[in-house]
C-alpha cells in the first residue's frame, strides 16, 4: 500500500515567487493534514481537511498560504508570495477517520522549501 506522497521533495525559490506543494494521501483516507517545521522550531499544525472541506485551519500563518483539496483526493498548498521565513519542511499526513488518540495519522516524507 502506498504511503502519503508529497511533491516536490525539494524546492528552492526566490522571495516573492510562488510555490505549490502537492500531497497525495493514502488511498481511502478522508482526513488530510498539513504541518510544517521551520528551522529550529517544532513541527506545527497548519490545517485539517475532511474530504474536500476544511475542518480546522487554525494553524495557517497568514493569507499568503492557500490550501485546497478539490474532489477530496489530493491536496495542494500554495505559498504566494513566498517570504524567507516560509523556508522549512512541509509535512502532509492522512488518516482514515478522525483519530481518537492521534496514533492513526500517517506522515509523508515532507517537501523541503528554501526561499532565498
Amino acid at each position, binding site marked *: 500500500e502506498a*504511503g*502519503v506522497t508529497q511533491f516536490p521533495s525539494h524546492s528552492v525559490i526566490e522571495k516573492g515567487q510562488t510555490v505549490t506543494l502537492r500531497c497525495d494521501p493514502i488511498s481511502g483516507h478522508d*482526513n488530510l*493534514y498539513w*504541518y510544517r517545521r521551520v528551522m*529550529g*522550531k*517544532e*513541527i*506545527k*499544525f497548519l490545517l*485539517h481537511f475532511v474530504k474536500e472541506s476544511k*475542518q*480546522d485551519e*487554525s*494553524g495557517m500563518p497568514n493569507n499568503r498560504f492557500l490550501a485546497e483539496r478539490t474532489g477530496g483526493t489530493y491536496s495542494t498548498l500554495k505559498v504566494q508570495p513566498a517570504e524567507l521565513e516560509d523556508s522549512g519542511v512541509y*509535512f502532509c499526513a492522512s*488518516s482514515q477517520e*478522525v*483519530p*481518537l*488518540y*492521534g*496514533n492513526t*495519522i*500517517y*506522515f*509523508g*516524507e*515532507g517537501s523541503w522549501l528554501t526561499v532565498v
Partner: protein
Amino acid sequence: EDKVVQSPLSLVVHEGDTVTLNCSYEVTNFRSLLWYKQEKKAPTFLFMLTSSGIEKKSGRLSSILDKKELSSILNITATQTGDSAIYLCAVPNTGTASKLTFGTGTRLQVTL
C-alpha cells in the same frame, strides 16, 4: 495553549549505550502522548501512551507515561547506529486528536 518540551535537544552516544529521552507536556485535557522516530524524512509512529505507569515495549525501545509528573520517557537499550534519528514527542490537541502539538525533538546520534 498545549505545550510539549523535550530534552535533551541532542545526544551523542556510543553503540551499546542505553539512552533515556524525556518529554514533558501541558494540555488542558490529556488524551494521549505519542512518540515518533524521524530517521530521514517521514516521522514514523513508535508508541501511544494513555495510562500512567504502563510500559510500552518494542524490541530495544520502551516508553512509559507519568501523568502525575506530566511527562514520559523513551528508553533505548543497547543502541545501534540505526537508532540515529530525531525522536519526536506529541500530544493531541484538547479539542480534537487530529491536531498534534509536537516538541522540538531530540536528535540522537549513535557512533561506533
